[in-house]
């Protein structure tokens, strides 16, 4: 199924967990945050959250700016 990670399309298997998709862009133990379909998902819920077709995931971190 197709999901979106940081604006890019990615094909993943059914029942993929959010944690797996996040790990594909960052394995940082802290300092990152994740939104699924425009809602924040706390780190503690990443392994228990299952993605659906069309899920939109954003993985953000602090950068220089402002």
């Amino acid at each position, binding site marked *: 199924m197709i999901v979106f990670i*940081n*604006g890019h399309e990615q094909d993943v298997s059914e029942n993929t967990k959010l944690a797996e998709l996040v790990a594909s*862009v*960052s394995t*940082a133990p*802290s*300092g*990152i*945050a*994740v*939104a699924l379909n*425009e*809602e*924040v998902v*706390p*780190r503690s819920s990443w392994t228990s959250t299952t993605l659906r077709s069309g899920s939109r995931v*954003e*993985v*953000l*971190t*602090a*950068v*220089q*700016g*402002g």
Partner: protein
Amino acid sequence: MGTGGVPSLSILREALIASGTNLTTVAMRRVNPSTSGSIFDLLKELKIEPLPNTAGCYTSGEAVLTAELAREALNTNWIKLEVIADDYTLLPDAIETISAASRLVAEGFVVLAYTNDDPILASKLEAVGCAAVMPLGAPIGSGLGIRNPHNLELMRERISVPIILDAGIGTASDATLAMELGCDAVLLASAITRAEQPRLMAEAMKYAVLAGRNAYLGGRIPKRWHAKASSPDRNEISTANLKADNRESPLF
């Protein structure tokens, strides 16, 4: 300090140290696996508190989501709220800002709100619960200094939360003026990060802010039309004939 616009992390590091800052803003962006070096690690090493901002947001909804993500990533409920109206002027969108501020306050955030120099808008931001207001002196990155000092004086009279001048500072004297007008702090990025020698400018700003704050607290002398001798008056014959002069002090 703000961290935007600096050519390298090592220059940023020198500037942060020279400025004496202990609170520095960072933006929230998508993770990019190719970037190396972390602003977060740098601030931690220098024992500077990171203050996430909502730079890049144009709507209240975007700003609220960004703030929630920042809280999650950095483990702080402090947020510098920044909602701009367009890419060209970078001026704040007052309506979206008020809306975002109310929502964030309700979610338990400590909101420091970037705004324009309108004292009425600042009062409204205080009324919805902002912990500080951050009026611009001039547009972001313009270096034009403080365009409306009178508005800032009016703002200082009306609100009691901290006022942090944010945006438009170009050189040290701008920062000093901000403090003389009663601001509690200044936030600046471009004036330092884009200066020819950021470390020197950062140091200048540190002293500029100290000077302005002490001048404000020290209570300046009033402006006068005529001179007032600093040596003690004697009983000179000519002084008795001077009429009282009620003219205002010169405009400039």
